[in-house]
């Protein structure tokens, strides 16, 4: 009896790990590209929020979840376009610009939510039917692994099997990826070679926003089925920490994301079992772990040299 219980627990844990890691992973991959171009974008939380909100509204009003996801992705990209304008064109301090984007997104989504869903109150929030998990035929019947790896949301498959290898290929096997990496290390060198640095940074930010938007849309359309202003709950910040912890390398970032997903799922599972421990304290674990990660991960060698420094042609 205990064995079955343990196996079930383990399966839920590992399968939950992938599921919970997905939104953070999307955002982290997007932020990786942004930071490789030299921009330290702190507005990830805001972009995820935009994606979550617009995704939810889109899905709710049109009835199509995928349309919601698409709209959420666009919303994230659009918000980061604003970030690009402020930090690349105007060269506003990147930290200030990113924080501003967060505050702006929080205010705007909060306000628009109140307007669009006027009739609803906090006791009856608007909700929708979320995505269904996609069980890959045959593979998902494999005991244990089938449950864990092959019964996930389509968005999760996309994140781990499409976006991740895509980003790896882009960064290390294409000339555009090489240019991008060089821009993050020495934008002046690339400028003098005729590479349009601003264009790369704009595109990187838009891509990053789209990824963050996808992550946010995942939270409302696959996980929760509803929208509250606190739904992102700091995951945008955790995504930024994961990029540092993963030393700006795609596969290590994946490992870091999975680790966080594991921890988060763990505390959920513990609650479910009914262990006598204040669940709120368990909830602090991911945040404390992020602090630890940032504290020990700081000496990473992989940080782009020009990260966070606006490029001004002299």
């Amino acid at each position, binding site marked *: 009896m205990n064995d079955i219980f343990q196996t079930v627990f383990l399966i839920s844990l590992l399968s939950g790990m992938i599921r919970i890691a997905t939104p953070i992973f999307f955002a982290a991959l997007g932020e990786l590209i942004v930071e490789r171009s030299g921009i330290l974008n702190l507005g990830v939380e805001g972009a995820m929020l935009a994606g979550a909100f617009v995704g939810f509204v889109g899905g709710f009003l049109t009835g199509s979840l995928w349309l919601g996801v698409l709209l959420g992705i666009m919303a994230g990209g659009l918000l980061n376009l604003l970030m690009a304008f402020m930090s690349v064109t105007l060269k506003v301090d990147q930290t200030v610009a990113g924080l501003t984007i967060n505050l702006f997104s929080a205010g705007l989504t909060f306000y628009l939510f109140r307007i669009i869903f006027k009739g609803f109150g906090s006791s009856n929030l608007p909700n929708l039917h979320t995505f269904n998990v996609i069980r890959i035929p045959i593979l998902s019947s494999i005991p244990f692994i089938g449950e864990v790896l092959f019964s996930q949301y389509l968005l999760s498959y996309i994140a781990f099997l499409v976006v991740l290898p895509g980003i790896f290929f882009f960064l290390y*096997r294409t*000339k555009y990826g090489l240019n991008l990496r*060089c821009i993050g*290390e*020495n934008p002046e060198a690339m400028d*003098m*070679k*005729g590479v349009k640095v601003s264009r790369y940074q704009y595109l990187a930010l838009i891509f990053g926003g789209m990824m963050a938007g996808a992550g946010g849309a995942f939270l409302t359309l696959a996980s929760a089925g509803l929208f509250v202003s606190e739904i992102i709950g700091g995951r945008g910040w955790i995504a930024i920490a994961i990029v540092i912890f993963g030393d700006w390398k795609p596969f290590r970032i994946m490992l870091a994301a999975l680790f966080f997903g594991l921890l988060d799922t763990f505390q959920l599972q513990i609650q479910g079992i009914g262990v006598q421990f204040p669940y709120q304290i368990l909830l602090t674990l991911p945040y404390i772990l992020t602090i630890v990660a940032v504290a020990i991960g700081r000496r990473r060698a992989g940080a782009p040299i020009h990260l966070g420094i606006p490029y001004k042609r002299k």
Partner: protein
Amino acid sequence: MMVLVQDIKLAAKPLILLPMSQEEIKEIILRVENLSKSFPGVLANDRISLDIRKGEIHCLLGENGAGKSTLAECLYGTYHPDSGKIFFKGEEVRLASHQDAISLGIGMVHQHFQLVPPMTVMENIVAGTVHKGIGINIRQATEKVEKICRNYGIELPLNNIISQLPVGQQQWVEILKALYVGAEFLLLDEPTAVLTPQEIKRFFSILTKMTRAGLSIILITHKLNEVMDISDRVTVMRKGKLIDTVDTADVTQENLARMMVGREVVFLITNEKVPPGETVLEISDLQVVNAKHRSLLKDINLRVRRKEIIGLAGVSGNGQRDLFDVIVGVRKIASGKILLDQEDVSNSPPWTMLKKGIASIPQDRIEEGLLMEAPIYENIILGIQRCAQFRSGILFNRRKINAFSREKMRDFDIMAGSPLQRVDTLSGGNLQKVILAREFSQNPKFLLASQPTRGLDVGAIEYVHKCLLDLRNSGVGILLISEELGEIFHLSDYIAVIYKGEIMGFCPTEDTTVEEVGLLMAGIRESTP
């Protein structure tokens, strides 16, 4: 060579373009007609007209601020000229971007290297170049680069990471970057700044090979001896104007110096030596390592006495920065001692070193020495802000601070309206004066001066040198770290050479020559019989 000046005004030569013969016109690869470029408050290029012949090495000579780099950047597409025309290979061209220049075959190597340290030489060369497809064919690119290297006799390990290469070799990566994309015309901005005299010889011989193969080169420099050594013709610029273009064979260094500065230039050394006092700073057996335990400084032994200047010569990147940081207290020692007036201050933090009487002039005044957005008075008290003389009780007394600042501004001839003026409105020379005022007013026992005249015009250089000599004569011991051999020879009582973190030699100035020092700078020790 260092020069001191006396004031005799000489006018700029009027701009008359003489008609050229057919052969001369065919030979010209680049022609600039009345090019002007200005920035807010500064006319950097004023109706410049010149032409470059194919296969020549043409030097662009002038002091800092003459407008040489601006002209080059206009030719490379970094800046758009306000007016004037550029003709390349006979046709008028508009260089709106670097891409335009590169596709015409114009390449530029800037004063400050633009390399990506964590990547390999090949990656640095290939990145950003235009080629078909989305992938990178490193093998093909490597073959092409190897061929270029063979052609000109350049030796370079192509798969090494930039950060592992010595500075002299990094220079070649910059040039290969241009040659790889087919440059026929090279703009080289102060390329010998980081080379030893021997490396400069080798560099020039390869340049000559290139021009014989058909390349044309503009070499920007402020070093008269290089102009004489390598150029076919030289164009002298001063304060944005073109003074003259002459055949190098027809002029002397004195002619050029006069054209460069506009005043009668006199080669004088007015450094009257004084007998030294007791030892103020002694460094013995200093070993410094970095976080990965790689040796940065090895077996450093130096002694500086009061009333003397020790000049530390060396190409940048050979440990000067680490030595500076150690003496100032910002970097830790692995072993060895630093004694200040016989007191052991090894590994003391910066605030202790400051208090004990060590003053310092950093090599990059803007990045390391000044608070640019702050007013002059805040910069002057930086480091001594806790002194009771600036306070009434626990709060600052602005009247006392202002009075102090005004006094310093007077003493050091700092051209500004008031101490409240922001420092980022000051010129390079005035910025350095602010730093001098600050450091000298702290009555130091010992001054560490790193590249104190970098980027300054001749007038400011003269002033700084005078200040250093006066300070020395007043009883302070000075360690002068400089890449300008002329400055070292002019000011120092003793010369030491640093190479790869070790002291290569130490002797009185009068007992050595530029050639000897140059050898040591390149790491070639004298063989002792």
